[in-house]
């Protein structure tokens, strides 16, 4: 097994880091020549409200086709948590034109790979395919956008699969459970308090009618957009989109209530006991997300702060807490500025053998205090910016990553064309900005602390009930 990265740290990365979003770079001249095509996208809106976004990348004869719905677990209500994700599973169970399992069978026959994922903010479906198969994929996705069968028997099987998924990803994973409970404590009013996969009791009581109501409410061309990246001609893609998606009818969408979280007015603490060996500590501070790309400053400063704290192996938390002080076996920070709902800035880690969670908390707090009082060095910030630029170019190597970047930004209501501006804003962040956000947001009033208290295995109590994604 890898010695450098514990399973815990990998989990953190999976949970927080992949949902990165579109960030673009001001390219220097040599790069513009080398990757001149790289930021050009084409967009068209059909009469029924469906938007189609195309990015051409002609390196290989493949394409990624994605359909994004602006409905995620944050749009659910109490008693039916998990229905967004359950519906995602049911989307593979057939329409009058396509029998149960037929969708995946046809994608496979086309040499493609397909899957889907549900987040708090959206639900998305994708196929990676040889480019000549794109029209068939569009036909299949258009069909299930409005004509899903939602059969009783299929539902009865699939809800059992989802409960197994919950056991696999949450019930038997102490760190997942810890995050689930942390969210439920940090958020009291906002729907981010419920796990994406749903509470087990809600799954046990879910019916096919819940799934149908969800489908009728949100699955419509005017609540969706299509992203295509690959070796395609954008005009041809628009023509196919018109042909396959164009006939779907617009539907009235329900209003969305903000359900804002009331201000937190004091520190909150929770402890989870579960079978494990390594203690875990998570400190979560309420923080802003990007709402106005041009005017906002704080979310960009927090992004740079996260990078200064743990953007690379010599970044502050790993260097000081893991390597120099030997206080932790893992220590990291994470923050995502792009979300429909409220954001949090996380500091997390596991204490070294012989050290306590309290000592680790004190160590993390000392790092925060240091930045609040002393600020960050200019070279630390430059380093974070260098990594930001390189990461943007590396992302161009993956067709899938480019499509994700576009889709995720659009999902939270930011036009993907503002990528460049977001990168500009990140590049403009100063050391003073970083110090200012550290002072402003790292306050106990805004803090929730979650601790995993490991229990020995043998007679260990059964753990009880985060992210969900179809396998």
């Amino acid at each position, binding site marked *: 097994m*890898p*010695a*450098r990265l*514990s399973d*815990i740290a990998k989990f953190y990365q999976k949970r927080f880091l992949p949902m990165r979003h579109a960030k673009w770079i001001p390219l220097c001249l040599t*790069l513009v020549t*080398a990757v001149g095509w790289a930021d050009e996208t084409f967009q068209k809106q059909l009469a029924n409200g469906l938007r189609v976004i195309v990015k051409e990348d002609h390196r*290989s*004869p*493949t394409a990624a086709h994605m359909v994004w719905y602006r409905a995620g677990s944050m749009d659910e209500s109490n008693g039916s948590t998990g229905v967004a994700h359950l519906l995602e599973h049911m989307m593979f169970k057939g329409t009058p034109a396509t029998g*149960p*399992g037929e969708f*995946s069978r046809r994608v*496979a*026959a*086309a*040499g*493609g790979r397909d899957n889907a994922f549900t987040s708090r903010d959206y639900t998305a479906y994708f196929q*990676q*395919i*040889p480019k000549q*198969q794109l029209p068939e994929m569009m036909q299949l996705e258009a069909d299930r956008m409005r004509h899903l069968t939602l059969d009783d028997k299929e539902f009865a*099987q*699939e809800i059992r*699969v*989802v*409960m*197994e*998924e919950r056991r*696999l990803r949450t*019930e038997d994973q102490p760190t997942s459970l810890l995050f689930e409970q942390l969210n439920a404590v940090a958020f009291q009013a906002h729907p981010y308090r419920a796990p994406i996969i749903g509470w087990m009791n809600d799954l046990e009581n879910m019916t096919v009618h819940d799934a149908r109501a969800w489908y009728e409410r949100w699955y419509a061309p005017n609540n969706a957009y299509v992203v295509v990246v690959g070796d395609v001609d954008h005009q041809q893609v628009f023509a196919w989109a018109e042909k396959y998606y164009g006939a779907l009818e617009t539907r009235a969408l329900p209003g969305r209530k903000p359900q804002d979280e009331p201000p937190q007015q004091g520190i909150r603490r929770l402890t989870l006991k579960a*079978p*494990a*060996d*390594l203690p875990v500590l998570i400190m979560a501070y309420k923080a802003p997300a990007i709402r106005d790309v041009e005017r906002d400053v704080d979310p960009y400063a927090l992004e740079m702060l996260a990078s200064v704290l743990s*953007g*690379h192996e*010599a970044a502050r938390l790993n*260097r000081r807490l*893991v*390597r120099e002080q*030997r206080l932790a*076996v893992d220590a990291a920070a994470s923050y995502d500025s792009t979300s429909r709902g409220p954001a949090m800035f996380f500091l997390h880690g*596991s204490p*070294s*053998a012989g050290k306590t969670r309290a000592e680790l908390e004190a160590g993390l707090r000392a790092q925060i205090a240091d930045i609040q009082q002393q600020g960050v060095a200019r070279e630390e910030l*430059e380093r974070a910016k*260098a*990594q930001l630029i*390189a*990461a943007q170019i*590396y992302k*161009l*190597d*993956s*067709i899938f990553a480019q499509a994700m970047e576009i889709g995720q930004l659009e999902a939270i209501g930011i036009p993907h064309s503002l990528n460049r501006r977001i990168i500009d804003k990140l590049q403009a962040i100063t050391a003073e900005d970083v110090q200012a956000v550290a002072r402003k947001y790292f306050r106990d009033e805004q803090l929730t602390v979650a601790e995993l208290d490991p229990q020995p*295995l043998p*007679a260990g109590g059964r*753990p009880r009930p985060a992210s969900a994604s179809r*396998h």
Partner: protein
Amino acid sequence: MSTFKLLFSLTLLLLGPLANAGPKIEHWLTTSGSRVYFVESHALPIIDVQVDFAAGSAHESSGKAGVASLTRALLDLGVAEMDETAIAGRLADIGARLTGGVDSDRASVSLRSLSMPDKRVPALAILRAVLSTPQFPATVFEREKARSVAALKEALTRPETIAAKAFWSAMYPEHPYGRQASPESIDSLSRADVVAFHAANYTAERSTVTLVGDLSRAQAETVAEELTAGLPRGGATNDIALAVLPAGGERYIAHPAAQAHLLIGLPALKRGDPDFFPLVVGNYTLGGGGFVSRLMKEVRDKRGLAYSVSSHFMPLAYLGPFQLGMQTKKAQVKEALAVSRQVLAEFLAQGPSDAELLAAKQNLIGSFPLRLDSNRKLLDNVALIGFYRLPLDYLDTYQANIEKVTLDEIKSAFSRRLPAAHLVTVVVAGD
């Protein structure tokens, strides 16, 4: 449409899906004896370099389990001119990424960098230092050893880790592949063990260098020469025998988890074995084809017993395993085990239907371009070809080799490779 594209399309029409040639792989030896594999691609200003050594955990001597991982972990945590902080800081300054890992056969060091000289040159200099002058500082050694022990102790509370370790021990009772690092074995390692493992295994003769991206052939030759000039020479000779088949049987391990973890398998396939293609095509129908496999249909779709169920072959140098696995809640263990065994037995007896065989070939041939549509994927494929000395036209002939597979070949390969009497079953948390 350009002339080239037009010609390409015509070729496609004539030859059907078999027309996708693989990338052009150039191959040579460095002065030091490293084997080099290079794919030139200027589409992006990126270079990827991977150096693989025959330094996986199978090469540990008995009593030293864990030394392979620890050696790899320490490789870039201190070199002659730089400590770990300087290495990580300089890499971050130029946006370069140094990664890698260890499996049973291989230890890998991978570098991704922008290709502009002001980024590429310093990034490659760091990689060269990591390969040539690792210091394994004593204090870093102690710290990383403690972290490894902590991570392993935690992992050993997880049902999936317990199941995997018990499974490999049962499949390879007398073979290095079955040897498992324990907190005690790691704790007993000394710095001298790491230094010795490095000297014996991280040598030029045991290495392959794979380069993909924005370099000319001449540049690639220089890079490979410089990277490998300072590698230790000579080193261990491999005397690892092919694994022999274990006695079959079942092992049940109690655990408080809500779900049981089930694994069934045995040592089955060596890298480069001619049975590879029949086994891959057949396994697509059995449990490799994701949502369309028989296991998925019977276990998940029809009965709702599991979220994920699959089977696969993992070819390794000294006979890698076939593995069938799933997770299901405790009360369903017997049913899940019975269903998956029945699916396996039926498949062994009859193989895929004509329609299933066609579907398997359609997908494996049709999806071929998706295996190669990024520099990263090219790097993975070419590094594998180089390390295991597969034919250089492996990718060019891949689709044709899939197409050629017959039903009889599948049945023959499965019956020879999966003798039921030797199948090992491990169930954790099925109590």
